[in-house]
C-alpha cells in the first residue's frame, strides 16, 4: 500500500467494504477476494496498471480488457450480495470507459491533456492553411449555390475542385497524425527520463495539433456532405 502511494504520487489506500482490510486500489480484496467499489482517485492509466504514457500496446490492452471483463462483468454476480453487484457494475462500467479512452491514440492524447489540466481543444485553423480554408469555404458555398440553381456544369466543376481539396486535407491529416505520434514519443521519453521541464512544451504542442486536427476533420466532413 505504501509502495503504491510512492509510485504514483497519490494515496490510493482504501478499505475493503466486505471484510474491512486495508488495501490498495486493487480490483479485488487480497484478504477476502471480493470485488471492490471504485476509489475516486484512480485515472484510466492506473486502472489498467499502465504508466501515464502514450504508446500503448493496443493488443495487450485488448487482452487485458477481455480478462478484466471476465472478472468484473455483472453477468457473473447475479447471485452475489447487493454490495458486490454494485461494485461489479461500477467497476465494469469504469473498465469499459477506460478501455474506450485508451484504445484509440487520439482519444488517449485528449484524455492525457485533460488529466494534465488542459481544456478541450477548440477547433483552430493551422496558420499555413488559412488561405486554403478561405478558398474552400468559398468553394463549398459555390457548390451549394450551383446545386440550388440546378446548374449541372457548375456543380461538376465545383465538385472537382472540392475533391482535390479533400485529398489535400486528408494528406494534411496524415501529417498531423505523424506529428502527434512524434510528440507522443517525446512525451513517453520525458516521462522515462523524468524530464519535467519538457513536459509542458510537449503538451502545448499536442494541444495545438489536436485543435488543428479537429478543425480539418470538421472541414472534411463539411466537404463530404456536399460531394
Amino acid at each position, binding site marked *: 500500500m505504501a509502495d503504491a502511494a510512492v509510485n504514483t504520487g497519490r494515496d490510493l489506500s482504501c478499505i475493503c467494504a466486505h471484510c474491512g482490510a486495508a488495501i490498495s486500489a486493487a480490483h479485488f480484496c487480497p484478504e477476502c477476494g471480493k470485488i471492490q467499489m471504485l476509489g475516486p482517485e484512480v485515472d484510466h492509466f492506473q486502472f489498467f496498471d499502465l504508466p501515464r504514457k502514450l504508446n500503448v500496446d493496443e493488443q495487450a490492452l485488448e487482452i487485458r480488457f477481455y480478462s478484466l*471483463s*471476465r472478472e468484473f*462483468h*455483472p453477468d457473473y454476480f447475479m*447471485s452475489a450480495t447487493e454490495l458486490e453487484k454494485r461494485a461489479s*457494475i461500477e467497476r465494469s*462500467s469504469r473498465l*469499459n*470507459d477506460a478501455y474506450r479512452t485508451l484504445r484509440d491514440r487520439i482519444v488517449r492524447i485528449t484524455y492525457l491533456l485533460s488529466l494534465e489540466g488542459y481544456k478541450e481543444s477548440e477547433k483552430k485553423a493551422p496558420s499555413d492553411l488559412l488561405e486554403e480554408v478561405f478558398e474552400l469555404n468559398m468553394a463549398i458555398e459555390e457548390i451549394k449555390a450551383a446545386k440550388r440553381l440546378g446548374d449541372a456544369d457548375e456543380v461538376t466543376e465545383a465538385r472537382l475542385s472540392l475533391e482535390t481539396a479533400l485529398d489535400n486535407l486528408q494528406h494534411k491529416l496524415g501529417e498531423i497524425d505523424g506529428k502527434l505520434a512524434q510528440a507522443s514519443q517525446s512525451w513517453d521519453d520525458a516521462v522515462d527520463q523524468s524530464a519535467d521541464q519538457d513536459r509542458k512544451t510537449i503538451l502545448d504542442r499536442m494541444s495545438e495539433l489536436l485543435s488543428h486536427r479537429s478543425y480539418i476533420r470538421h472541414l472534411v466532413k463539411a466537404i463530404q456532405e456536399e460531394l
Partner: protein
Amino acid sequence: MAVIELSLSGQPKSPRVVGIDLGTTNSLVAYMSDTGPEVIRDEDGNGLVPSVVYYENENDQLLVGEAAREALIFEPRKAIYSVKRFMGKGSADVQEDLSLVPFKIVPDSEHVIGFEMGHRVFTPPEISAFILRELKKRASRFFAEEVFQAVITVPAYFNDAQRQATKDAGHLAGLDVLRIVNEPTAASLAYGIDKSNDAVVAVYDFGGGTFDISILKLRDGIFEVLATNGDTHLGGDDIDNRLITMIVDDVERCFNRSLSESPEMFQRTRKAAIQAKHQLSKDDHAIIEIKSDDQHKEYRREITRDEFNNLIADIVERTLVPCKQALKDSDLAPEQIDEVVMVGGSTRIPLVRNKVKELFKREPHLEMNPDEVVALGAAIQADVLAGGRRDLLLLDVTPLSLGIETMGGVVAKIINRNSTIPASAAEMFTTWVDNQTGIDIHVLQGERELVDDCRSLAKFTLKGIPPQPAGLPRIEVRFLIDANGILTVSARDLRTNQEQSIEVKPSYGLTDDQIEKMLLDSFEFAEEDVLKRQLIEARNEAETVMRAAEKALGEHPRGLIDENEQLEIRRAIDDLRQTVGTDASQLIREKTTVLDEKARHLAELIMDGALVAALKNRKASEVAEG
C-alpha cells in the same frame, strides 16, 4: 415430456432461467439442455406462440397464441397483435404504426398507449405480459415446476423506454427479468457457441416489426459488439402492408365493402397477403385468394416474384442504410466481415438474401432457423446468468447516444452510441440563482443535436439542495446504462458527500405506481386466476344454497309444500352435490340456479307474509341465511 432434474452434488439446484424471444409476430421460450439450447414446444411440436391476444366476452377470459390468431379472423375487434410496435411509446409516435393495424388507441395515450379490448383498456406492457404468461405457463408445464426467472430479448435498436416497457411486461407476467438481451447479440451466441475460431460476424435481423444489424467480434468465448444500428419501424408487417395496399381497391370493389370499416374483411385480406408472401419465398409466383363470408364471391389475383420484388425493393433497401452505418461505426469494410448470420422471418425473402449478399460480398449463413435462433441464444445467456457457465461473455453496446439538454435546446452527449455497457458518465451541476433548492435535468436519447430531434427519456429533479449562493452547490450526477441498456441516475452533493434525492418523471412508459396497480388487476384478470376464482366462487355459492335449502326442508312447518315439491328440491340438491366436486364452474352455476328456483317457493312461504313480497326476487340462500 417433462424433465425432472436431480441435483447430484447435493447443492440446492439453482432456479430455472429460461430465454424468451418476445417477437412482433411470434414468441418463443427456450432453455439450456444438457446437449445445448432447445425450444420448448407444445404437444404438436410447435415452438412458436403467435403474439396475439384475444378477449373472449362469454367466459371473461383471454386467449393467447394460436387460438387468438385464429379468432382474429372472425372477431378482429377483440384481438390485439403486433403490440411490440407500441411498446414504450406515446400516441404521437405511433400514427404510422396505427395505419398498419385495424385497432385503435384510446384517447389520452400521450405517455402510454391504451388499447381497448372487451371494454377494458390495456397498455402494451400488459398485453405483452399476457403473451409472456403463456410462455411461462408452457415452460412451467414442461419442467413440472414453476419457472419465474427469464432473459427476454429486444431489438438492439430499442431505446430506454422500450426496454423498460419490456421489463415491466415481464414483471406484470410474474417473471423476474434477469436480463434484457439484444436479439442480434443473442442470435450471435447461438451461432457462435460451437465455433472456436475468432471471427467478425454481422447479424442481419429482419423480423416482423423491427430491423437490426449488429457487428460482433468473437474471440475466446467473448462476444464483443462493435456496433449496432437499426430501425424499430421496419419489418415484415410493412411488407404485408404493401401487398394489402396493392390489392385493397380491387378487393373493396369485388366485395363492395370498405376494408377500414370491415375488420373481418381486412383480416381475411391480410391473411391472404401473408400467405402469398410466404409462397413467394419458395415459388416464382403466388395466388392471392379471398372469399366472402358466404363463399359466393371470390377475389383472385396472381403475383409474380418479380412484381413482389419491385413492390418491396425500397423496404429492403432501407435495411441497408443501418448496415452501412454499423460498418462505418465499427471502422470495418464489408470485406472484413467473416460471416453474415441471417435472423428473423423476413430473411426468408429471396430479395433480402440477395441484397445482403451483395452488400457483404459473401453468402449469408442460412443454416440456423431464423425464427428460433434468438430464443436459443437467450437460453444460452440465461444459462450464463444462472451460473451455469463462465466461458461465455457478452459485451454489448448501447445503440443510441445519451445526452442532456443544455442552453438553447441543444443536446450535450454524455455517453456515445456503441459504447460498451455497462457505461457511465458523471456530470457536475450547480445552481443558477441564489437559494435555489432544485435543479431540473432533461435526459434524451438520439444522435441529433437539438432536443426536439431526440427522444426524451425523462426529467430528473434534484431536490432538497440547501439554500446557498448561486454556483456554490456542487452536485455530481452519475448516469449509468446497465447491462440491460437501461438508464439509472444517481446524484451526490459533493460538499456534504450525501446522496441527493432525485424525482424521476419518465417521458414515456408506466410509473411504478401504475405497475403496482396493474399487478393487482392482473391477478384478478389472468386467465388461469380467473378460472380458478370462478370455480371457487361457484362452489362457495353452491354450498351456501345447498345448506340453506336443506335447512329450509328440515325446519319447514308441515304441510307448507307437498311431497312432490319436496322431492324436486331434494333431487336438485343431490344433483348439485354431484357436480360441485368437479371443475365445471359453469355447470355448478347452472345447477345452483336450478336449486335456487326450486327452493324459492318454499323459502317464501317460510318467511313472514309481510316479507314475502319484498323478498320475492331474492335468492333462497339469502332468505334462509338472513
